[in-house]
C-alpha cells in the first residue's frame, strides 16, 4: 500500500500524484517505472517515474486517464492508498553523448523529463526540453520543467503557446542550428506516433536517440515476456532490458501492432468501469 500525499490536476484527463513510497523513491533513477494496481481484481499497469525526492521518500507520477485502471486511479484522493505499488523497474537511462541533450515530451510523457533532465544538467550537460501538446491547455508542468533544464521550448499544434507546429518541426530547426542548437543526443517520451516521428527526424542527422517504449506488461520483472519488442532484429523484454531503446533500431510497426492486441477488451472494460463506478482502493 502506498498513500497519496498530494494530487493535482494538470489537464482534464491528466493528474499528478505525490506518493509516500520511501523505498521506491530512494532506489529510483531516471528512466525507470513502477507498476501499480488499484483494486482487487485490477490490472497491473506500468507508469513512468516522473520524479522522486529521496530524502522525503516521495515519488511523483503523472497518470493520464485513458483506460480502466487509470480512471480508477483518478478517483483516488489525497490520503487514499494505492493497493499495490512496486518498483523501480527497468534499466536506468544511460545517455552516452555528453554535450547538448534535448528531451522531447509529448502530452503527459513530458513528466518523465523532470528527473532525467535535472540529473543530466547536474552532470554538466546542456539541456533543452521541447514540451509539446495539441494546445496550450494540454501542456503540462511548464514551471517545473523550466527549473530542471537550461532551455524550455514550448510547442503546440495549434500555435496557442510557444512554437506553432509539431515537436519534430521545432527539433528540425534545432538540428539546423536554430535556438539552443543541434543536439548531441535526443530522448523522446510520449505517444508512439510522436516518438516515431522524432526517430525519423534524427535518423538522417545521425543523432543518437532514445525512446521510451510502453508495451503491455504484467509483472514487470521479465517473468511473462508479454512486453517483447524487436530492437536491432533482436527480441528484448521492455521491462528488464528497457524501457528506453535506441530509437533507430526499434521496430515501431510491431510495437504499435502489439499494443493494440486488446483494444476490444480494453474498450469493454472501460465502458463497464464507467457505468459500474466500482469501489477502488479496497482489497
Amino acid at each position, binding site marked *: 500500500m502506498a498513500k497519496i500525499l498530494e494530487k493535482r490536476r494538470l489537464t482534464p484527463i491528466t493528474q499528478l500524484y505525490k506518493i509516500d513510497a520511501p*523505498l*521506491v523513491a530512494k*532506489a529510483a533513477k531516471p528512466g525507470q517505472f513502477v507498476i501499480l*494496481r488499484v*483494486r482487487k*481484481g*485490477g*490490472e*497491473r499497469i506500468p507508469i513512468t517515474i516522473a520524479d522522486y525526492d529521496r530524502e522525503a521518500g516521495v515519488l511523483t507520477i503523472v497518470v493520464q486517464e485513458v483506460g*480502466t*485502471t487509470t480512471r480508477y486511479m483518478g478517483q483516488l484522493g489525497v490520503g487514499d492508498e494505492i*493497493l*499495490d*505499488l*512496486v*518498483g*523501480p*523497474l527497468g534499466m536506468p537511462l544511460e545517455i552516452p553523448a555528453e554535450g547538448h541533450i534535448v528531451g522531447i515530451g509529448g502530452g503527459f510523457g513530458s513528466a518523465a523529463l523532470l528527473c532525467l533532465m535535472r540529473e543530466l544538467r547536474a552532470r554538466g550537460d546542456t539541456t533543452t526540453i521541447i514540451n509539446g501538446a495539441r494546445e496550450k491547455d494540454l501542456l503540462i508542468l511548464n514551471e517545473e520543467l523550466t527549473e530542471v533544464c537550461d532551455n524550455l521550448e514550448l510547442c503546440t499544434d495549434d500555435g496557442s503557446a510557444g512554437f506553432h507546429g509539431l515537436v519534430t518541426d521545432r527539433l528540425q530547426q534545432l538540428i539546423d542550428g536554430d535556438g539552443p542548437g543541434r543536439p548531441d543526443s535526443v530522448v523522446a517520451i510520449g505517444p508512439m506516433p510522436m516518438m516515431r516521428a522524432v526517430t525519423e527526424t534524427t535518423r538522417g542527422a545521425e543523432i543518437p536517440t532514445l525512446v521510451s517504449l510502453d508495451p503491455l506488461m*504484467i*509483472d514487470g*520483472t*521479465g*517473468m*511473462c*515476456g*508479454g512486453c*517483447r519488442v*524487436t530492437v536491432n532484429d533482436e*527480441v528484448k523484454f521492455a521491462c*528488464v532490458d528497457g524501457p528506453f531503446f535506441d530509437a533507430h533500431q526499434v521496430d515501431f510497426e*510491431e510495437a504499435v*501492432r*502489439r499494443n*493494440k*492486441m*486488446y483494444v476490444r*477488451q*480494453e474498450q*469493454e*472494460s472501460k465502458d*463497464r*468501469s464507467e457505468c459500474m463506478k466500482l469501489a477502488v482502493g479496497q482489497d
Partner: protein
Amino acid sequence: MPVKRVEKTPMPERDAVLRSHDFGEVNEGYGMAHAQFEAERCLRCQDAVCIDGCPVRVPIPEFIHEVAKGDMRSAAEILRSSNPLPAVCGRVCPQEVQCEEACSVGIRFKPVAIGYLERFVADWEMEQTDIDITANLNRDEKVAVIGSGPAGLVCAGELARLGYPVTIFEALHAPGGVLRYGIPEFRLPKDVLDWEIEQLKKLGVEIQCNIIIGKTLTMDQLMGEMGFKAVFIGTGAGLPSFMGIPGENLNGVYSANEFLTRVNLMEANDFPNADTPVMVGRRVAVIGAGNTAMDTVRVALRVGAEQGLVVYRRSVQEMTARVEEHAHAIEEGVEFHWLTNPVEILGDEDGWVTGLRCVRMELGEPDDSGRARPVPIEGSEFVIPVDNVVLSIGNKPNPLLLQTTKGLEANKWGCLVVHDGSSETSKEHVFAGGDAVTGAATVILAAGAGKDAAAEIHQDLSAATR
C-alpha cells in the same frame, strides 16, 4: 497387518466434460474410508525406501500408519513436522517418480498412493479449528528469504520452526510464486495455497509483497543497514524461453508464463469483472509437453478455446509431464501432436496468428539428455490452423538479482552457482535453492532445496554465534 491389494484406491475425480469448463479441482480427494482402505496397503518397511525418494524426507510409513489407525491428529503432526507445504505437495508432487516409485509394494503391485494420502491428511488438518500453531521465535538473527515460491516458503517455514525471525520478500502483489501464477486452480486451489501460507505466518514468518530484491532493495542493504544475518535466494526460473522461430511476436502468441499469469494471478477467466483480459481463439496450440504445457492447454479450454492442441517435437515417451496430468488432458479432449516440430508461426495481414507451420520428426540416436534425438523428416512440412500459440518450452532463472549483486556467481545459463552438495553461494551467508540454482524443475525439488538450505543456514548462524 498390511493388506495385500493389487490396485491403488482410486482418486475420486470430477467428470471430464463438466470440469473442463470450470476451475474447480479435478481430484476430489479421498474420504476417511478411502484413506484407511489405502493406508492398510503400506508394509511399514523397516528400511523405508520411500523416504529416500522424498526430497523433504517425510516419514511416510509413520504418518500412513496413523491414518490406518484413524489417528488423524498424529498423522497431521508427523506430516507437518517434515513438510511445511503438505496440502500443496500432496497435490502437485510427481510421486510416481519419487516416493511411490521407491515403494516396496510397487515391486509386485501398484505402489501405495502416498500422494493421495498426504493430501488427505493435509485436507483434514485444514478443516480443524482447534489446531493451534504458535510462533516461537527465540533466535536473534534475522534471515531474509527472496521469493515466496515453494523453495522460499519451505525454507522460511523451517527457519521459523527453528526459532529464526524470517522475512520473505516477494516481487508480485501476492505470495506463492509459481504456486500462484503458474499452477491453475483445478490442480491447486488458491484457498489451499492461502491456507498453507497462513500456517507459515502463524509460525512467525513475515511476508512483504511488492518488493524486488535487486531493484527496490539491494542485497547489500538487506545484509547491511537492515541487519539480516543470512539470506536465502529462491527466485525461481521466471524468464520464459522462446524458440526463435519467425512469427513469435505476432498478436496471439504467448509464453506459458504470460498465459497462465493472466488467468491464475490476474483472474482473466473472470474478465470483465477482473480487469485483465486473455485472448483465446477457437484453436489454441501449446508447444511443449511438460506439466506447464498440460496446465496451459487445459486452462485454454477453460477460458473458451474449442480445441486445445499440444505440439511436441519428441514422442509421448519423452514427454516430461506427469502421467496423471497427461491422462487428465486426454480425458478433457486435448489433441496431441507428437513428433511435430513448429518451424514458423503464421499470421494474417493484421499480424494475428492464423497457423503453425510444422515439420514431422522421427526419433534418432540418444542426445545429451539420454532421450532419443528427434530428427526432421525432409519434405514433411504442414500447417496446423490455430488462433493462438503458447510457448511452453522452459524458463531460465531471472537475472534481476544478479544485475545488482556483487560477488554472486552464476553459470552460463544464469543459474546461481552453489558449492557441491550444499546451498551456499559464492557470497558469504547467502544461500540459494530451487529453480534459481537448478533451472526449471519441480515444486518438490525446490521445497527440498529450501528445507536443506534452512538446515545449512541454521548451522552457519549457530557457528557464527559460538
